[in-house]
């Protein structure tokens, strides 16, 4: 888990890679060509960034003819996300809804 976390942090320490990863997270699967068109760097540079993201398991790839398609694999972010605060809010909101439900229920 620690090694995986380090890879994730290294991969995302670079702003171009961060931008590529966020773009894939928001917009779904993209080809290397499409990513190059908006990244503002050369295709070999984009491919290199993608291989670093892939090593950290942040993206997955799929060959389709001559094109390689990449998609985000956000589960790899798990070590980074503060699950305690995400779930803290989730359950507090749940308790609120539960209390409202209890007020409506028969005794």
């Amino acid at each position, binding site marked *: 888990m620690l090694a995986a*976390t380090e890879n994730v942090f290294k991969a995302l320490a670079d702003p171009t890679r961060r931008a590529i990863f966020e773009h894939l997270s928001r917009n779904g699967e993209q080809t290397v060509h499409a990513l190059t068109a908006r990244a503002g760097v050369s295709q070999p540079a984009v491919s290199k960034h993608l291989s670093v993201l892939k090593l950290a398991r942040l993206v997955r790839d799929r060959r389709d003819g001559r094109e390689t398609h990449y998609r985000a694999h*956000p589960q790899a972010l798990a070590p*980074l996300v*503060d*699950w305690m605060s995400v779930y803290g809010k*989730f359950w*507090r909101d*749940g*308790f609120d809804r539960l209390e409202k439900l209890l007020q409506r229920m028969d005794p």
Partner: protein
Amino acid sequence: MTAAAPTRTLVIEREMPHPPEKIWRALTQGALIEEWLMKNDFQPVVGHRFSFRATPVPNWDGVIESEVLAIEPHSRLSYSWGTMGMVSVVTWTLTPTRGGTHLRMEQTGFPSEESASYKGATYGWTKFIGNMERVAGGLE
């Protein structure tokens, strides 16, 4: 990941002016669970596998895979909670009080390795991580 990896626990407790039997119904009847939590096919039977289903968001199918681990009517309920490649355990404890019930929810099994110490100082990632929580968490 080693079997001995330490984990962290989230606890939320609240006093509720309702008897344990009534709260138990809201925690164990599928239609009532759906009203305050999520769609589900829960059955109050130890070993029953079921899922909670939220509205899917990009990169999260909205499914939480669960199994009933413990049932003690009107006092204790426990199920696993697996999603986004992480499995935790949710345990509800109901204790009668003078005015109703003390309800306690404990969720345990969060990774607790050093990721927290990376945060803050070195990387100005708050916004990025906030965005990713919405993608990765997508719990509402």
